[in-house]
C-alpha cells in the first residue's frame, strides 16, 4: 500500500463537523466548493494554505456532530492525504472509509506530532513516521472488514461487487 507524506496541521479535541464544513455551505455537494471552506471556523486560513499530501492531526473525538459526508469529502477534496487523531466520532469514521479518505487512530501520534512537522504514513503497516522529530508511532489496526471496503475502493464498489455488477 502507498506511503503518504506531507506537513501536519494540528487541531485540538472534539473537532466537530460544523468546524470541518459549516452548514452554511451544505447547499451544495460539489467537492471543489466544499474544499474552499474546509476547517473554516477552526482556522480560516487553512483552505488557502493546505498543500496536497498534507495531514490533519487532531485529538479525541474528531468529526463529532452531524452525519454530513460533506465533512470527509471537504477534507479529501482540499488535498489532505489522511487524518490522524487520538480517536474518531463513529459516523465520521464510517463516512471516511466509505468515501476513501484514509484515517488513522493513534493517541501517541496525536500527542507527538506538532504543527508543521513533516509526516510519513504507511497505510499498509499503520506506521506513522515524524520525519521532523525522528519519531515513530503505531496506529490502531483497521478491522479486516474495513480493509475489504478499502481494497474494493470504497463502499459503493464493495456493494457493486456483492450485487455482481463488477468482475471481482
Amino acid at each position, binding site marked *: 500500500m502507498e506511503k503518504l507524506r506531507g506537513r501536519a496541521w494540528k487541531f485540538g479535541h*472534539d473537532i466537530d463537523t460544523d468546524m470541518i464544513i*459549516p*452548514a452554511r455551505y451544505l447547499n451544495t455537494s460539489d467537492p471543489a466548493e466544499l474544499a474552499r471552506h474546509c476547517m473554516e471556523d477552526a482556522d480560516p486560513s487553512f483552505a488557502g494554505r493546505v498543500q496536497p499530501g498534507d495531514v490533519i492531526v487532531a485529538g*479525541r473525538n474528531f468529526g463529532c456532530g452531524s452525519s454530513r459526508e460533506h465533512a470527509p469529502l471537504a477534507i479529501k477534496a482540499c488535498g489532505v492525504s489522511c487524518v490522524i487523531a487520538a480517536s474518531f*466520532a463513529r459516523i465520521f469514521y464510517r*463516512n471516511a472509509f*466509505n468515501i476513501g479518505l484514509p484515517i488513522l487512530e493513534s493517541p501517541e501520534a496525536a500527542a507527538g506530532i506538532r504543527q508543521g512537522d513533516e509526516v510519513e504514513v504507511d497505510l499498509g503497516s499503520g506506521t506513522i513516521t515524524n520525519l521532523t522529530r525522528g519519531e515513530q508511532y503505531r496506529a490502531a489496526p483497521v478491522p479486516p472488514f474495513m480493509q475489504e471496503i478499502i481494497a474494493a475502493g470504497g*463502499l*459503493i464498489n464493495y456493494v457493486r461487487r456483492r450485487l455482481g455488477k463488477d468482475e471481482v
Partner: protein
Amino acid sequence: MSMTITEKILAAHAGLERVEPGQLVNVRVDLVLGNDITAPMAIQEFRRIGVERVFDPERVVLVPDHFVPNKDIKSAEQAKVVREFAREQGLTHYYEVGRMGIEHCLLPEQGLVAPGELIIGADSHTCTYGALGAFATGVGSTDLAAAMALGEIWLKVPPTIKFVYHGQLPPWVGGKDLILYTIGKIGVDGARYKAMEFTGPVIEGMSMDGRLTMANMAVEAGAKNGIVPPDGVTLRYIEGRVKRPYRLYHSDPDARYEEVYEFDVSGLEPQVAFPHSPANVRPISEVGLVEIHQAVIGSCTNGRLEDLREAARVLKGKKVHPYVRLIVIPGTQEIYRAALREGLIEIFLEAGAAVSTPTCGPCLGGHMGILAAGERCIATTNRNFVGRMGHPESEVYLSGPAVAAASAVLGRIAAPWEVQ
C-alpha cells in the same frame, strides 16, 4: 446467555441467536431515512451502484426539512433532486412542504417507526427513535445509498452503558435537562460507539415527548444509539399510529453493561449548556448574567407539542423583551395545528414571537434566525458548536423550552419561576 435490548434487536435483524459487543453484523433494516442535505449525495451514489429500484419503496423515507422552504437557489436544486427521486421510485413516504415536519418529530408521529425495529438515517439525530424501544442510528450518505439498494447495513454491536434515574423530577425540569445533565457528567465522547440505555422510575414516569428528547441527544455524547425500554407509555403512544406488527424487547435482568450510572434527580435544576459544547453544562442557579439577543424554541430535540405547551405556560400574558427576537418552530404540521387549536400559537403571537412553518432552519445555521457576530441565542436545539447558528463569533446556549421562554421575556438567561 443474557443480552441487552440493543443486542437483542441487532441479533434479531442479523438472523442470529445472539450477538456480543464488538461483533460485526450484517443486519436487515426496517426503514432508511434521508433529508435534503444528505439524500442528494446518497442518490448520486445510489445511481453509481447500478441498481434501478430501491429495495422497498415503502421503507425508504425522504424528508426535505433542513433548508426548506427552500432558502436559496442551491437549496432549491437539492430539494428538487430529492423530490424527483421520490417520484421516480414511487416512494410512499416523501413529505412535501406544507405536509411535512422535522424528520425526527415526523416519523414517530406518523407511525413510521415502531418498537423492536431497526432504523438507519443519514442524519445524526436518527437515534431519536430509540425512545420507542427501537434501534436507530445515524449514518452518512454513502451508507444510506447502500442501504437503499440492499435493505441491509453492516454494524458493529456496541457495548451498552445503562443510566438509571431515581427520584422525583422537580417542576420545570424535564427530558432536556436530564440529558444535558447526563452529557455534562460523561462528556461529548463519554458514550462514543456505545449504546445509552435510559431506565429507572423517572424514565418510566416520563412522557414520550420527553423520552424522544433524551434519545435525540444520545449522539451528543458520541453514542451509536440511545434506547428506552418499551412500556405502557410506548404502547399508548403508538396506538393508532403503528398499524403493522411490532415486537417489544427488554434487556435481561443479568444483561452485561459496560458501565452503570445511577442519578438521583430530585434536586435537579433546569440545565443550560454554555458555548461551545453540549457538555459544558451548568444548573440555572449558576448561570449568572447572560444577556441574549435571540431565543429559538423548536427543532428535532424540543419541537413537540409538550415543548410548545411548556413554553406557552411561561409566555402566557407576557411580552418578549424589546431587545430579543423569539422564534418558535413547531416540529410538524400536525403539532402546528394542535398548537393552534389549543391556543398556544395565539399566546406566542400575542407575546411578540415569530412562528415559523416546520424546518430545521436556525438549529444548524441554515436560515430563519441566523446570528450576527457577537450575538447570543438561547435555543432548545441540540448543538452549540462554534458557528452552529451563524457567525463563528456568535454564541448558542442550550436549554429546555421553559428556560428559553423565560429568557426571551427577561432578555437574559433566566429560570421560568423568575417570570411572574
